[in-house]
């Protein structure tokens, strides 16, 4: 392509890049605003962030009208798939801003950098969802990782927080080193870094399957770190426990969903015969990656659930449970059908409501009683009925019991898995057994809250829950039940979003 064509494509792409450009502008605005507002601890930074997010939201919805296109010389893709994820990330960010305003941990600190970094992190997630070139994928993943290190350490005077940040940074750097080695082998095999071209080259030529296998395993190390799948989950309980709770809630959704976006796009475009039309497609003949991911999924949910049983700290318990949920969501990836991708997308949205909700209840109790231990949750239902009932809804949904959204989400995942044929029946059985195990430890929290007596020495008087908290709980809790009863709108959105660009 001539140089002038490349430059023209870059300029034409700007129109499709509006949400990201607005977000960048917002970040710059916030840096300046932080300097001007530094003296007073005002709520202005969060207000600017919220207004900016609203503007970005309109820009994203507007992208539906522009149609699918590969932009910036095939560096990024604008398609329904990436728009869906951008909406999910922005919703996460907006809710985390609300959680942060309420958070006691963060009060009394300068929050200028906090909100600025949060918006940069959102930009990184946007880019992960649309990246179609190994360089863009890598630099977006690094952007998300490095900003997360800083945000995890935001309570730097608390030792747990800085320790968590350090562990996150070391694991992150190590796994990105492994991923890069995998990418370099893939580059050696194909001579290109663009995932569409990688797909063409690999489909058209018989490559050494051992080299391809090693490269895919190493690349999966980097992606697996982002979704906290076995064996790259070590960081997650420590980081979830040590980070400020709003950031924990963010990390359990944002980067995880972005990791799924990258996995689905990379594996299906580069390593299968996906063409964007067929309902069902096949992996490349010389690498059976669905089986690799199936094993990872089984190991991830089993380990997450089994270790969660032994936890006494609710934040750590939710960390292991979110490892397990990454395993469930992977079930939709292994089947290579639009139904599978659809089930994963649906599950991620459901997971957004129930997981953020559960974390929010932990934030409320932590702020009031100052503890995250299950033992200190005893008898909370009588002292604070509204958050306790909400927690019940979220935990039922996380377990996957009807009539909650979690049930519908799991149902779609298992349906896609069964439909794919007997090859994956074992995985469905593992998944079902895991759901039973999960019921046990979620029930422990509920038992402590609803059936155990208040510990001695704790006054039984009711706790004051501010209306602000109740409103936020309703925002998360009502959809969790509503989607369980009437899921057609969400199902429509998810089924519209399964299409990503198969070629440039």
């Amino acid at each position, binding site marked *: 392509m001539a*140089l002038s064509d*490349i*430059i023209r494509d*870059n300029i034409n792409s700007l129109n499709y890049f509006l949400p990201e450009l607005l977000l*960048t502008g917002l*970040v710059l605005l916030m*840096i300046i605003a932080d300097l001007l507002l530094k003296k007073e601890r005002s709520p202005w930074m969060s207000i600017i962030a919220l207004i900016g997010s609203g503007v970005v939201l309109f820009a994203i919805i507007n992208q539906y009208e522009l149609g699918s296109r590969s932009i*910036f*010389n095939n*560096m*990024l893709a604008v398609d329904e798939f990436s728009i869906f994820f951008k909406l999910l990330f922005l919703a996460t960010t907006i809710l985390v801003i609300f959680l942060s305003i309420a958070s006691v941990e963060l009060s009394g600190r*300068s929050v200028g*950098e906090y909100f*600025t*970094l949060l918006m*940069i992190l959102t*930009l990184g997630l946007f*880019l992960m969802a649309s990246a179609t*070139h190994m*360089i*863009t994928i890598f*630099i*977006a993943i*690094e*952007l998300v990782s*490095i*900003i997360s*290190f*800083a*945000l995890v*350490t*935001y309570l*730097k005077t608390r030792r747990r927080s*800085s320790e968590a*940040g350090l562990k996150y940074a070391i694991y992150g750097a190590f796994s990105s080193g492994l991923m890069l080695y995998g990418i370099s*082998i893939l580059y*050696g*095999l194909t001579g290109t870094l663009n995932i569409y071209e990688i797909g063409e080259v690999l489909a058209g030529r018989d490559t*050494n399957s*051992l*080299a391809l296998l*090693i490269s895919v395993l190493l690349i999966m190390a980097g992606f697996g770190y982002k979704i906290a799948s076995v064996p790259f989950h070590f960081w997650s309980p420590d980081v979830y426990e040590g980070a400020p709770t709003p950031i924990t809630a963010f990390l359990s959704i944002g980067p995880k969903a972005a990791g799924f976006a990258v996995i689905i796009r990379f594996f299906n475009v580069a390593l299968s015969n996906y063409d964007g039309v067929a309902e069902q497609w096949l992996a490349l003949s010389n690498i059976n990656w669905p089986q690799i991911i199936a094993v990872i999924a089984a190991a991830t949910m089993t380990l997450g659930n089994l270790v969660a049983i032994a936890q006494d700290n609710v934040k750590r318990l939710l960390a292991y449970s979110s490892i397990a949920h990454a395993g469930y969501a992977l079930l939709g990836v292994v089947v290579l059908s639009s139904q599978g991708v659809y089930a994963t997308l649906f599950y991620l949205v459901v997971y957004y409501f129930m997981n953020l909700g559960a974390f929010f209840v932990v934030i409320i109790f932590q702020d009031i009683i100052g503890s995250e231990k299950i033992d200190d949750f005893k008898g909370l239902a009588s002292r604070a009925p509204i958050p306790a009932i909400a927690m019940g809804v979220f935990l039922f949904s996380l377990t996957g019991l009807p009539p909650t959204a979690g049930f519908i989400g799991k149902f779609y995942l298992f349906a896609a898995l069964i439909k794919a044929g007997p090859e994956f029946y074992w995985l469905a059985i593992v998944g079902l057994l895991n759901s039973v195990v999960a019921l046990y430890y979620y029930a422990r929290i509920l038992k402590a809250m609803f059936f155990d007596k208040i510990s001695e020495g704790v006054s039984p008087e009711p706790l004051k829950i501010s209306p602000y908290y109740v409103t936020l709980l309703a925002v998360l809790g009502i959809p969790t039940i509503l989607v369980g009863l009437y899921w057609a709108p969400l199902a429509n959105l998810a089924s519209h979003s399964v299409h990503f660009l198969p070629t440039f």
Partner: protein
Amino acid sequence: MNITLFDTIFYLLAFLTLGSAAIMVFSKNVIYSAVGLLFTFFGVAGIYVLLAADFVAVVQVLVYVGGILILLLFGVMLSNKITNIEITTETLHFLPASLVVIGIFVVLYRVFITTDWNPVGSYNFDPTTHEIGTLLMTDYLIPFEIASILLLGALIGAAYIARKD
């Protein structure tokens, strides 16, 4: 097989790189490790020159030796001074780690030996700066811009974390 000057230089640089990397990993003294890393960086930069990647070689020296290594050395000195304790460098879990690592190496070796790589082709040592610069401003414009945001974010984050308040 007759050994040319080019080959000799390659073997010398490979020896320098691997020897200093081994010192870096296995030395008991952190300062020795840092100096080992210095020579590894220089060795790798030399190999880049052999691979006709002059711009990357120069950037390697500037960024890694001039930036990252100095930063790491600051870290070593700073931690020594603040803590005033001996930095623990005993090696633990040696056996399991080495088994894992030998496994990885054997697999990588198999990968490279079973794949049919030709000799490295182009030895026309033209300057690469022009091509790389053009690529960065055309094809790779967007990663280039993202990288600047990455650096901005890292700057804000590092400044916040390291700041007293």
